[in-house]
């Protein structure tokens, strides 16, 4: 399935509305539309397909956070924004890997996106902290917490799934798990 950049590109307004509505379809369109651009950037600058995937997904997360936080103005094309963010992320990764970075081959215009990326790094840190906290929590706590807070299952469902005899037991268990998770999260 080859994707032509011109045919399947959604308009910038469509994408922003799609992000705000949490639409899967809009994400799929957005993803397919600009992936080749980032792939080209990475492949021509010492990277491979997997690097491109990582960088592109991180750039989309930056875009989502920015749009959802409400301070996103369409002052530039979305394409330019995504390109600039991806380029910045890749440059950073290259520096970390101590590869040559002085002459990156560019394919698009560039915006200044340092501030957005700094915010993103903060959030990324939080994400990692939560991930580590959840992983070190162990079972069944991890699943109980994920079911309740991430998959939004009710206490009743959790009670049945884990075979607790009554809702109070499940509640106590969840409370204990939560206390441990909070401790792990805030202390890390």
């Amino acid at each position, binding site marked *: 399935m*080859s994707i032509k950049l011109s045919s399947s590109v959604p308009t910038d307004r469509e994408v922003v509305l799609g992000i705000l509505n949490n639409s899967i379809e809009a994400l799929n369109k957005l993803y397919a539309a600009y992936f080749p651009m980032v792939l080209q950037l990475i492949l021509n600058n010492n990277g491979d397909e997997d690097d491109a995937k990582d960088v592109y997904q991180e750039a989309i997360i930056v875009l989502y956070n920015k749009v959802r936080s409400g301070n996103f103005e369409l002052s530039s094309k979305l394409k330019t924004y995504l390109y600039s963010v991806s380029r910045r992320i890749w440059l950073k990764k290259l520096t970390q890997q101590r590869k040559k970075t002085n002459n990156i081959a560019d394919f698009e215009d560039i915006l200044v996106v340092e501030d957005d990326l700094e915010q993103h790094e903060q959030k990324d840190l939080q994400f990692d902290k939560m991930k580590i906290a959840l992983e070190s929590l162990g079972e069944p706590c991890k699943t109980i917490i994920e079911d309740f807070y991430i998959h939004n299952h009710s206490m009743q469902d959790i009670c049945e799934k884990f075979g607790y005899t009554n809702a109070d037991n499940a509640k106590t268990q969840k409370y204990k798990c939560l206390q441990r998770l909070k401790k792990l999260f805030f202390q890390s």
Partner: protein
Amino acid sequence: MFTAFEEIILSIMKMRNDIELEAIIEDYLKGKLTPEEHAAFEQLRNNDQIVDHKVVAHKVFLESMAQYANILQLKERMDAAHAQIDVETLASELRPHPSKLVKLWKNNRSAVAIAASFILLTMVSLYSIQSNNKQAGTFEAMSKDMARIKTTQNSLIRDIKSREANKNSNNNSNNRARFGGTGFAISGNGYIITNYHVVRGADSVYVQNNKGVSYKVTSFYNDPQNDIAILKINDESFHRLPNLPYAIKKGSSSIGEQVFTLGFPKDDVVLGDGYVSSKTGINGDTLAYQVAIPVNPGNSGGPLLDNNGNIVGIINGKENKTDGATFAVKSKYIMEALNAIPQDSLSRRVTYGKRSQLQGLKRNKQVDKIQDFVFMIKVYNNN
């Protein structure tokens, strides 16, 4: 309902029923309480600092959790979208193609030909100038020497085993360090810098301070290109070091600058004194200085300091055909290594470009102050 809720709140205040409190805080933050309950809870929150603190903490936690859930969902969806794309085909289209090079050659063939003939002409004329010059012969000889020197540059690793095995052949050789080198502290909390070639391929590494106490270290960062390795002391008996007396020199040193080094070619620290003799290392290597200091195996990884107590490099080798030609990695690359590792792991790190505490002191005082921060590196290798 209202009275029941009030009862719960009362019971919370009396008995500190944390499970119920947690549930109410969660409902409160999610806006699930009735207006009356909400008001009653706000009242409690205003009156009880501990409850208020718990509300704030839970709010932060819920927000982080929501953010985590959002990104997790986004990542899952993106992976699904990614699976739809035929990455391989795309990549083969977008990859810098060799045929482009061929095209470039075809388009610019005449320009390349002109450039090539220029180079040829230049070489011919240079050759004729050289052959007219009597010194050309010695220059060629020199360059041959240089080629040989390159292959014979010694890494100054001390082969302790080979010496001590002769002395105490009864000892269990597994318990003895195979190689030794020198390293020095770059932060108060136990980060030691040395040469990569000292610790390369090591099974375990220990450092020993000038009082003879050994600590186990783990490899923390390696930069084979600049021959730099950073080790971390992982030993409960290790106490934090006081402030580091030396600083890392900003900028490069000039030829003729007085420098000295401390190292462990034997079991006690040894001072070596000399001057910077060239701004480049072996074969014009710009990463290193050449210094005129007599060094011996075991000096590798030692700090090279100037008269003001600034670190200008790390001793990393010598040329074995010439006396007094020692090489040292430039301080710039120490900084690069330091900048490449997470900054918050280094507490009380070595300063850069600042005035060191050693400035103006006599050499013996300087050595007194430094020697607590210079370590012998002991490398054990079971192979």
